[in-house]
C-alpha cells in the first residue's frame, strides 16, 4: 500500500517554512514535507511541536491568528499557493478540518454539511448526492441532521466536521487531530472512514495526530515534528519499527508495553522547556 503511494507524484510540497506569531514567537523553524497523491501522510509530534501551525500555514489560515510565514515556499501541484486566500485554496481542492471540531454551533448538522459545498458550482443534484454519500459514511449524522450542532456530542461534531470537508469534493484533506477526545471505538471508526474515503474517492490526506499508534497503522508515510523541526521521516512501517518512536511515541520499551502505573521516572526530554 505504501509502495503504491510512494510512486505517485508529489501533490503538496512544503519547503523549509518558518512561521512567526505576533512578530516575535518563532514556531516553525524550517519545516519541509511532501504529500503524495492518493496517500495518507501523518504528521506526528508532541504538544506544541507545530503540527497545527504547519497545517494552517498550508491552508493559509494563520493570518487571523496574527501569524505569518516568513520563509520558505509551499507548492500545490507545483504551483505556489502562499498568496491565495483560503477560499481559493478550497476551490483548488485543499480543505482543512480544524483541530477542536469547529462546527457552526447555531446551524443544524445538515446546514453545516451544506456549507461545505459552498464553493461548488455543480448544481443541487450533485450536492444532494454527496450529502447522501456523507450520510452513508456517517449514519449517526443522518439521525441528528436537524439538531443544532452546538448541542451534539464531541464525536458527532468531529464527524460533522469531516463530513463537511467531504462535501467540497476535495482532492486533499488536511485533518487536524481527528481522534482527540473520542471514544476508542469511534477513533477506529473515523480512521476506517478516512481509509475508505482515501481508497474509494482517491482523496489524499495530511493528518496531524497525537495518537501515534493509530495514525501509523493507517498512514502510508509519516513525519515527526519536534519544536518546529522535522526530526524523522519515512514510511509508516519504518517509523513503527524505530526504537525511539517506539519508546517515546508508542509507549513501548524492549519489554513490550508498560503499564502507566509502573512508569516510575519522568522520562520527558523537556523539549518545550528548552
Amino acid at each position, binding site marked *: 500500500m505504501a509502495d503504491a503511494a510512494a510512486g505517485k507524484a508529489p501533490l503538496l510540497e512544503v519547503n523549509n517554512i518558518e512561521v512567526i506569531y*505576533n*512578530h*516575535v514567537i518563532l514556531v516553525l523553524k524550517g519545516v519541509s514535507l511532501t504529500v503524495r497523491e492518493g496517500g495518507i501522510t501523518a504528521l506526528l509530534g508532541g504538544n506544541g511541536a507545530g503540527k497545527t501551525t504547519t497545517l494552517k500555514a498550508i491552508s493559509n489560515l494563520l493570518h487571523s491568528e496574527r501569524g505569518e510565514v516568513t520563509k520558505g515556499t509551499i507548492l500545490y501541484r507545483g504551483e505556489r499557493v502562499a498568496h491565495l486566500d483560503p477560499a481559493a485554496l478550497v476551490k483548488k481542492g485543499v480543505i482543512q478540518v480544524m483541530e477542536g471540531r469547529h462546527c457552526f454551533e447555531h446551524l443544524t448538522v445538515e446546514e453545516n454539511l451544506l456549507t461545505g459545498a459552498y464553493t461548488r458550482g455543480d448544481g443541487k443534484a450533485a450536492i444532494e448526492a454527496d450529502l447522501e454519500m456523507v450520510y452513508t459514511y456517517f449514519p449517526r449524522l443522518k439521525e441528528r441532521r436537524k439538531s443544532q450542532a452546538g448541542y451534539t456530542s464531541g464525536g458527532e461534531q468531529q464527524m460533522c466536521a469531516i463530513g463537511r470537508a467531504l462535501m467540497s469534493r476535495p482532492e486533499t484533506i488536511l485533518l487536524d487531530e481527528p481522534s482527540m477526545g473520542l471514544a476508542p471505538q469511534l477513533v477506529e471508526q473515523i480512521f476506517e472512514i478516512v481509509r475508505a474515503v482515501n481508497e474509494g474517492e482517491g482523496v489524499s490526506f495530511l493528518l496531524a495526530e497525537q495518537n501515534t499508534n493509530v495514525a501509523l497503522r493507517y498512514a502510508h508515510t509519516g513525519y515527526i515534528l519536534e519544536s518546529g523541526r522535522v526530526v524523522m521521516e519515512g514510511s509508516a512501517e519504518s517509523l513503527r519499527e524505530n526504537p525511539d518512536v517506539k519508546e517515546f511515541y508508542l509507549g513501548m520499551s524492549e519489554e513490550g508495553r508498560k503499564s502507566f502505573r509502573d512508569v516510575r521516572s519522568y522520562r520527558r526530554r523537556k523539549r518545550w522547556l528548552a
Partner: protein
Amino acid sequence: MLYRTAGQFKTSYRADQALFPVRQDAILLGLVLILTWVIFPLTASEFAFQTLLIPILIYALAAMGLNILTGFAGQLSLGTGAFMGVGAYACYKLITIFPWMNPVVAILLSGVFSAGIGVAFGIPSLRIKGFYLAIATLAAQFFLVWLFEKWSWLYNDNASGAIQVPNIETLGVWVAGPQAASITQYYVVLIVVTLMTVLCINLTRGTLGRTWKATRDMDIAAELIGINLMRSKLTAFAISSYVVGVSGALFVFMWRGAAEPNLFDIQLSFRVLFIAIIGGLGSIMGNYLGAILIVGLPVVLNTLPATFGLPISSATVEHLNIMIVGALIIFFLIIEPHGLNQLWRLIREKLIIWPFPH
C-alpha cells in the same frame, strides 16, 4: 543593551511581587514622577494646564475606572459618562449642603454615591452578558442623564438647569471655582489621581484582581473553581463606579467649573471607552497613554494648520480632526488591538532580546 533584564535576580516572592521588578522601569517611573510633579507645573502655560495636563489626568482616571470594569472584570459598559455625572452632581450637592466641607473630602465622598448607583445598575450583569450588557448599561446612561435634567433638586433649581462650581477656599487658597488658579487645581487633581492609581494597582494585582480577571476570561470556569460571581461582578461595578465618580467630580470641580446634564452624554462615555481601549484593556498605565493620545491629539491637530500657515478654515480643521481621530482609532486597533500598553510591552520584549530578532 540599555534594557536588559538578565542578571536582576529575585530572591524572595516579596521582591518578585514588587511593583517594578525591573530596575529600568523604576527609573522610568521616577522620571515620569519628576516630570508630572515638578517640571510640568513649573513650565506649563495656562493653556497647557487647561487643555492638556488637567484633562489628561482626569480622563485617565475615568478610563482607569472603566478599565477595572471592562478590562479587568470583562463587563463592557457604555454608561461611564452618566456615572461621572453622578459623581459630579453628588459633589455639587455635598458642597452646597455642607459648604464647610473640604473639597477634596467631598470629591472622595462623592464617589461613594456613584458606587452605590453603579452596583444597582450592575445587578443585571449577573444574568446579561456581552453586548447585551453593554446596551443594558445604556439604560443607565440615558436614564441618569434624563434624571439630571428633570430632578431640579439636583441642580438646586437653577433656572438654567446647569450646575455651577462655587468658589471654594481651603487653607487660604482658592481650590475650586473661577477664582482658583490652574496650578492649584492641577496639584489637587494630581494628588487624587496618584492616590487612586496606587489603590487601583494594588487592587488589580491582588486577590480581587485575579478574581476579576478570572470572571472576565471565563466566568463559568471561574464559578466552578470557587469564585462567587455575584460578589466579583458587583465589587467590580462598585469600585469602578467609585473611581469613575471621583473622576466625574474632579471633571466638574477641578476643570470645567460648570456642567449641564448633556455634558454627561453618551459621547463622554465613548470618549472614556476609547481611552481605555486605545490604552489597553486590562492595564493601569495604558489609561494614561490613551488619555494622552485621545485628549492631546485634537489639541495638537488644531494648532497644526496655524503653525504651518495653512489657509484652512477652522470648520474644515474640525472636520479633518474628526476624520483623523476616527482613522487613528482604526489604525491603532489594527497595529495593536491590545492597546498602547501592549505595544510598549512588545517594544520591551524586543529590547530585551535586542540585538537579536528572536
